[in-house]
């Protein structure tokens, strides 16, 4: 260590004596620290500071915690108040009494940033509480009461604090942490994934807690904007700003869609939704008025310059079409201040171009520099002539680079301040490349794309939320549902079933006939009709007798009112279907198959749009949805063969299949929509111990459907179903079939009576 002046003032010597800490390194910094402390703290504050440092010294984690405490405390207090001096040292001490000693340093290091972001004692206290709470909940013990195993997630969490503090409010952080601590308390690896923001649900909860205008909430609106104002029909793919630390990604578009950020905060007086619109307008304008040019003919500087003029050109055209865009673009465009860039030591090219770009948007830019004004004027001259294309911008761009060149332009120290226009895309579509080398890259891209295409065969999973009744929140994207076509068996099997039930089928047919005439509606006020409408006739006679003109429309007739109902049958295919109920000689699966066949036959005759699917689950990561019959398919051999192959296995997680079935049903144009669920037991899965959880989730799913005007009805074969089924499906939303062997007969009847 080099010799530095470590002499203390007499006063400081007194302080030094109060600090009970023997690390030699302390001498080198003490004077500096005290100088700052004396400037900031009261006398009491200084006393607390010194005893606090003594406490931190005592935890036996070396000198570093002491140094951080001494160095950072004054700043922390400036954002909060002096009570923090004691609080923090006590926290460090408490921390050291747990098995989480390794995390003390990162914790201490996170405090200054937290104080700056949160800006109040109260908020900082929240922050500390939240961290401690998480630590307590995730620190485990092997035997008995004493905590012995450090928290797995805590180091990961402390790694993320800066980012969390930037993106979320403290409540958001708390909710995000709570979720992870609740759900992964006993899963070390998943806990780590969660708190390092790796796992999907971690990111999903994070997004939910995030402020600003979320893309997901506004996707439809943005599609409407794109269709309505730009007649552009591409789709959007959101990306996250959160997980790329080095370079914030910019919007762009390519053959796979238009990439936009997943969230926009209000900024510069422009609402999040209008920031999205600005981005989309800019991109739409490129797509409408732009074209790609060969990149190889230009130097990098020329390309940057051309991009600026081209961006301005297409925005000029967009503003002509929608003048209101100007104020939005202008507010979002950074305002580079003339003369703020030191062009002796750094490269100011971007700065100058940004000034031009701003000046092109805002006529009152007030810039003095003559070259900048000259090019702004030249741009407007070209644009006002009309029909300016990208080649005019190429000319402008090149000529600006040539005329404004400065030696410092190629310095490595490039000034980026106020040069990034974040609603503009990265212009990758602007350039075409001839070089061979680049082709390789694009070939790679292509290959990856093709692989994706291939996978379409096996549909990617759909994610559905699940309701957690404990916390009264949805667990976002909790369940992965895979939809596949049910494999095929022999359709003859179904024909045999139908033959076996021939007499039942005939009876059902008669019932169907009865069903039809009841679909008549009366039409009154007919001059000619099938019956006299007495009410009207009497009125007419009275009119006539009293000398008024009678209404001659005294008849009524009947009209066949078309049924307008779409049906979805969801069949539970869990392992318990293999059971052969007492007194039966067939398994529930066989009976279900027969019942579904007869129901399908019935509905086909009624001509109602009708679909069938089966489901079972093997944890939330693997819920299977087996397509048996779609709305566009008829009751034919194809469908029969799938039905005949129907097999049972795994568990009964019901919420996600219901939600999935609903999304098909929703798209049916029918007036009334009915979801029938055929099951033999209560919702359950092997990864859930709490038996209420899936029941509550199913109840919630049914609620969601009813808000979408879908009527759900459950047919249960579980004799004990009365205990729970009413809670799920509502008082009239279920039928329990006690004699399972009657199912083939009951199911179609039930359907008919439901839709009468």
């Amino acid at each position, binding site marked *: 260590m080099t010799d530095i002046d470590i002499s203390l003032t007499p006063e400081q010597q007194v302080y030094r004596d109060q600090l009970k800490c023997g690390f030699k390194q302390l001498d080198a910094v003490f004077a500096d620290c005290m100088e700052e402390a004396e400037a900031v703290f009261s006398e009491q504050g200084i006393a607390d500071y010194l005893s606090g440092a003594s406490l931190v010294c005592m935890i036996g984690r070396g000198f570093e915690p002491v140094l951080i405490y001494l160095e950072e405390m004054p700043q922390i207090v400036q954002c909060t108040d002096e009570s923090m001096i004691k609080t923090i040292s006590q926290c460090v001490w408490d921390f050291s009494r747990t098995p989480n000693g390794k995390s003390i340093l990162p914790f201490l290091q996170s405090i200054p940033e937290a104080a700056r972001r949160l800006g109040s004692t109260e908020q900082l206290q929240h922050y500390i509480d939240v961290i401690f709470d998480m630590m307590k909940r995730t620190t485990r013990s092997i035997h008995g009461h004493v905590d012995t195993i450090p928290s797995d997630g805590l180091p990961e969490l402390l790694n993320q604090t800066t980012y969390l503090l930037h993106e979320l409010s403290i409540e958001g952080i708390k909710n995000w942490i709570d979720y992870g601590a609740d759900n992964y308390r006993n899963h070390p690896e998943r806990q780590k994934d969660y708190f390092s923001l790796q796992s999907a649900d971690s990111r999903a909860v994070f997004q939910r807690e995030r402020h600003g205008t979320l893309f997901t909430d506004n996707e*439809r*609106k943005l*599609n*409407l*904007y794109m*269709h*309505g*104002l730009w*007649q552009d029909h591409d789709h959007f793919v959101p990306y996250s700003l959160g997980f790329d630390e080095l370079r914030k990604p910019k919007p762009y578009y390519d053959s796979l869609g238009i990439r936009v950020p997943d969230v926009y905060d209000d900024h510069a007086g422009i609402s999040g*939704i*209008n920031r999205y*619109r600005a981005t989309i307008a800019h991109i739409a304008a490129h797509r409408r008025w732009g074209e790609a040019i060969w990149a190889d003919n230009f130097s990098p500087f020329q390309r940057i310059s051309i991009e600026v003029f081209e961006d301005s050109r297409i925005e000029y055209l967009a503003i002509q*079409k*929608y*003048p*209101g*865009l*100007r*104020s939005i673009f202008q507010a979002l465009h950074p305002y580079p201040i003339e003369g703020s860039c030191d062009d002796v030591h750094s490269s100011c090219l971007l700065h100058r171009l940004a000034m031009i770009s701003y000046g092109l948007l805002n006529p009152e830019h007030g810039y003095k520099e003559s070259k900048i004004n000259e090019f702004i004027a030249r741009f407007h001259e070209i644009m006002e002539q009309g029909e300016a294309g990208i080649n005019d911008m190429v000319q402008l761009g090149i000529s600006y680079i040539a005329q404004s060149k400065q030696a410092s332009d190629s310095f490595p120290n490039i000034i980026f301040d106020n040069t990034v226009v974040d609603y503009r895309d990265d212009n990758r579509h602007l350039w075409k490349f001839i070089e061979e080398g680049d082709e390789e890259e694009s070939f790679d891209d292509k290959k990856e794309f093709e692989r994706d295409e291939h996978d379409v065969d096996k549909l990617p999973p759909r994610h559905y939320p699940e309701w957690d009744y404990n916390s009264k929140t949805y667990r976002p994207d909790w369940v992965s549902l895979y939809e596949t076509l049910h494999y095929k068996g022999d359709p003859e099997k179904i024909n045999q079933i139908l033959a076996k039930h021939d007499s039942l089928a005939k009876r059902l047919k008669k019932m169907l006939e009865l069903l039809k005439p009841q679909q008549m509606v009366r039409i009154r*006020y*007919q*001059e*000619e009709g099938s019956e006299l409408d007495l009410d009207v006739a009497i009125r007419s006679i009275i009119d*006539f007798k009293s*000398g008024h*003109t*009678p209404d*001659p*429309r005294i008849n009524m007739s009947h009209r066949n009112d*078309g049924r307008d109902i779409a049906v979805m049958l969801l069949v539970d295919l869990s392992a318990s279907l293999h059971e052969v109920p007492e007194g039966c000689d067939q398994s529930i699966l066989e009976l279900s198959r027969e019942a579904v066949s007869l129901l399908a036959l019935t509905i086909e005759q009624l001509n109602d749009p009708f679909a069938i699917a089966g489901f079972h689950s093997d944890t939330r990561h693997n819920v299977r949805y087996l397509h048996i019959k779609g709305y566009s398919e008829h009751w034919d051999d194809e469908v029969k063969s799938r039905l005949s192959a129907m097999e049972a296995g795994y568990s009964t997680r019901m919420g996600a299949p219901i939600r999935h079935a609903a999304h098909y049903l929703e798209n049916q144009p029918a007036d009334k929509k009915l979801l029938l669920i055929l099951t033999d037991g209560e919702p359950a899965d092997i990864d859930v111990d709490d038996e209420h959880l899936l029941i509550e989730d199913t109840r919630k799913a049914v609620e969601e459907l009813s808000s979408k005007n879908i009527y759900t009805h459950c047919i249960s074969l579980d004799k004990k179903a009365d205990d729970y089924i009413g809670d799920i499906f509502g008082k009239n939303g279920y039928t329990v079939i006690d004699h399972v062997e009657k199912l083939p007969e009951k199911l179609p009847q039930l359907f008919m009576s439901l839709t009468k």
Partner: protein
Amino acid sequence: MSDQDIKQYQISEEPYYESQEDEVALYEAAYEARLPVMIKGPTGCGKSRFIEHMAWKLGKPLITVACNEDMTASDLVGRYLLDANGTRWVDGPLTTAARIGAICYLDEVVEARQDTTVVIHPLTDHRRNLPLDKKGEMIEAHTDFQLVISYNPGYQSLMKDLKQSTKQRFSALEFDYPSASVETSIVMKEAGTSEDIAQKLVKIAVTARNLKGHGLDEGISTRLLVYAANLMNKGIEAKAACRMALVRPITDDTDIRDTLDHAIDSIFA
């Protein structure tokens, strides 16, 4: 029927009509040949106005019937009325038109039930007559008589389509909203507004028409543009007038409403 009665169906002043393409010439030819004409097109695009204009241009009386689902054949053909002295036959509008040689315009004909629409069949083929079954009379249509029907294929349900045997008795003109320049001059003339405002209104309409099928059943009609301009004439600020006349009537969907409101803000900046 007396001349006096016919006169009430004559159109004395030229109804303003801005032609979109060659529909005037096409219609004149159809009239020359006494072909029945069907006019298709979205609501408020100028179908009724066109017929009024043509009737005026040809100097023929015009009888318009707005169809609805309660309408029966007698409402078109006529019926016996009972009065204190017994019964009295009263011609329906279709019969009147056939007698006096008017253009009979059945507006939104699909609204009428199919058993009603068949009464027009004999008038629309070579027979050109109309049997009044109840009265036991057969009317030969006047040589000037022509039948015109309108309908908007957009929002009709499948149930309400016209029968093929009805459709195939007509020649048809398909209307759409006018081109931007034509629509601009319509708004200017109808409401007496400046070209600038009319152009902006038309742009908003175009935006909404692009959203048809994305949650809008029909785009903003020319009629509504004229309404908006009229509100502005009464001193209402442009954006407020647009919201009131163009957006609120056509949608309850908040996403669509927001998007159109934003379009208004962008266009009337």
